[in-house]
């Protein structure tokens, strides 16, 4: 219990620091640390899969994105960065937020004591999905439509980002980091870490059906490796008009839809799996899905095209 109190205070301390510090770059760095501490909180709340996702996606990729943005914006730290709103607005905002926090805190305390849960239903029906880990069972079987729509949201976010590019750069290349010395440390690390990282990513994806892991966590690690390789200058990001890239992006949801529609025939309903070979079907969905998510995450980090294709 003491550890929980310590972690809670640490999380709040970091959050206060993030909100109150003046320098945007420091806030972004704090956010990465904040994300890692929240990962520990997820471990304490007995949610290892969520801890993996939070570490990889919540603090890793989001932190990287925010760090990259704050450095690009920091170069032109305009005069407006320091000034804040008038004291009156800050006080009223603080009042409103304190009110909302107090209300939520009161509600959390007043939650019904025999907490309503769906764990028994999940346990009762998990045999039909052929998986042991309940989370992929919920994500890929019971609420498969949410996961499907969510991957479509990811692809749509990518298209939304691409559409921000100026017309003449439409099928160009994303921003290239100012190359950090071809023979530098980063290149060496990329050559060493990339294969290990890809192995770890595939391992985490593979054990997802049995132990904590799954396609989102594995895909995030694969995306991180791809970004590391491009940042080290070993490979360049493909231009967005490349046909194979678009196919890799779409193959995941396409297979998901195909097997979902096949569910009409073999299991009587959309996204239904016959219990006998549900596990194999889910696996055939997850492999291309991991590829699509990894590609989408890496391209989201790389940013809209800023260089014309050669």
């Amino acid at each position, binding site marked *: 219990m003491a550890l929980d109190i310590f972690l809670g205070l640490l999380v709040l301390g970091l959050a206060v620091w993030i909100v109150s510090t003046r320098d945007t770059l420091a806030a972004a760095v704090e956010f990465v640390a904040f994300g890692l501490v929240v990962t520990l909180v997820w471990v304490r709340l007995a949610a290892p899969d969520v801890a993996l996702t939070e570490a990889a996606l919540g603090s890793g990729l989001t932190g990287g994105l925010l760090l990259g943005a704050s450095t690009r914006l920091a170069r032109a730290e305009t005069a407006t960065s320091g000034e804040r709103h008038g004291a009156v607005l800050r006080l009223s905002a603080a009042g409103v937020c304190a009110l909302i926090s107090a209300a939520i805190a009161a509600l959390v305390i007043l939650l019904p004591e025999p907490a309503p849960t769906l764990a028994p239903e999940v346990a009762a029906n998990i045999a039909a999905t052929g998986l042991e880990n309940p989370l992929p069972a919920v994500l890929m079987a019971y609420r498969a439509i949410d996961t499907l*729509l969510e991957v479509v949201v990811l*692809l749509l976010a990518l298209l939304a980002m691409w559409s921000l590019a100026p017309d003449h750069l439409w*099928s160009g290349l994303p921003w290239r980091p100012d190359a950090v010395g071809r023979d530098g440390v980063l290149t060496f690390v990329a050559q060493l870490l990339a294969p290990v990282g890809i192995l770890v990513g595939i391992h985490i994806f593979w054990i997802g059906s049995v132990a904590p892991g799954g396609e989102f966590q594995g895909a995030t690690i694969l995306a991180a490796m791809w970004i590391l390789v491009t940042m080290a200058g070993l490979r360049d990001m493909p231009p967005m008009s490349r046909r194979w890239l678009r196919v890799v992006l779409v193959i995941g949801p*396409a297979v998901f839809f195909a097997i979902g529609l096949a569910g009409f025939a073999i299991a009587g*309903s*959309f*996204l239904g799996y016959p219990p006998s070979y549900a596990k194999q079907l889910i696996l055939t969905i997850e492999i291309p899905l991991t590829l699509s998510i990894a590609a989408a995450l890496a391209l989201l980090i790389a940013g809209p095209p800023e260089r014309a294709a050669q």
Partner: protein
Amino acid sequence: MSKLALMPGLATAGGFLLVIAIILPVIGMLLALALRGPYPERIALVVMPAGVAVAVTITAELWRTRSVLQYFVGGWAPPLGVAFRADGLSAVMMLTSALLISGIGLFARAQFPSPREGEARAPSTFWTLLLAIWGALNAVFVGGDLFNLYVALELLTFAAVPLVSLDGRAETFTAALRYLLFALLGSILYLLGGVLFYAAYGTLDIAMLSGRIHAEPVAWAAISLMTAGLLAKAALYPLHLWLPPAHAGAPAPASAILSGLVVKAPFFLVVRLWFDVMPRMPEQAAAQLLGILGAAAIILGSVVALRQARLKLLIAYSTVAQIGYLFLMFPLAIRPETGHPWSATAWTGGVLQAISHAFAKAAMFMAAGLIAEAFGHDRIERLAGAGRALPITVFAFGLGGLSLMGLPPSGGFIAKAMLLTAAVSEGQWWWAVVVLAGGLLAGGYVFVVLARALADPIEPLRLSATASVRRQGVVLAVALCAILLGFVPLRPWELLQIGRPDLATIGLR
């Protein structure tokens, strides 16, 4: 007893149509994303008739069976699985969006032609986003699970925000960013409400939640947070700051979709929340608050619209005002215990207002687009001679204005008449005053535009490019839809009562 006529017992025969209504545009969008080049436009043109056909089939199936269509995705019944449900309201909204998106698609072919070889940014993005918006709208209209609706709302946001800054002008990036920030705030508040529901009642399925909910602090907090989030996304006053620059900055077909349909989805979810999730809770006071916000939106939106110098901004502020009308429905139609006779009239009036506004506003934005293309600008005081240069377009704009004002024979008139009768007969006369004042002000800003447009041009007109008669015909057709709604007899509107057993229909006879 749950307000929905069907407890989550069994999936109905026609249920799979709901799945097709969602996956058809989404698969089209994936294909468009993969194939690029001229294909997004062709895929959109193939999906449009199919989507209209599916919407018509769903409405026919609903009318025939007179019961809510229901489908359990993957065969898993709630609370574990996600259910799709379509009642009369969903079917009517799906039919409206299918017809309107097809109309806007035909109109947009000239503005976003995809080149034969190679690829251009705006056209391929527009057609792909058009399909994505259609899929997201259908997912919102049939969703039966609050978290599934959250994902559908996010799909809608990410499809709508890039439309605002599609032609790459600097000020549209500011408008798009502000729109995105408001939308994200709305989504997070909606999710916060959702988690409170799950923590308290153990399910996120609407039908089951309405069975388990009772008037306690956590239920009130969850509903108020979700409603606040949805109001931010629906741009109801005072959370409307993002709408005018966003809808005015977008290209014409995009603003038609944004004002006509995208803004209606959060309103639809507030209706789902108030009429389906909290049936047995005394919410008359809260409904009055929504009505007051709606009234404020009508008055202030119209007054600000009167003072606009640019045509598209005028129409955008008119959207802010007309959204206020939609929320007048809540204080009039919400009567859990007494089930007073006039709630059905107010309910039908509110839904009819949403539909007629969709068609009328889309026609006005498209007409404004054509005028801006021909004149090179859209400042109202220098629109003299537009009536002579683009007669059909200005006539369509006038028809749209007619429906907004609520003059017979338009659909807007029927909607406002129903709201008026419900307000007067329920004794809440103040809503009647607001409806009439709103109609008067709407008349004001429409006449301001028409007076300028029909005036004789002082110097001879130098038009850059007048649109083809076919494009103007499409705008006219959409405007006529708003008018024809007024000719539909009351009998078919009982379609809206399907899934609403409690709404007494005495008032409608």
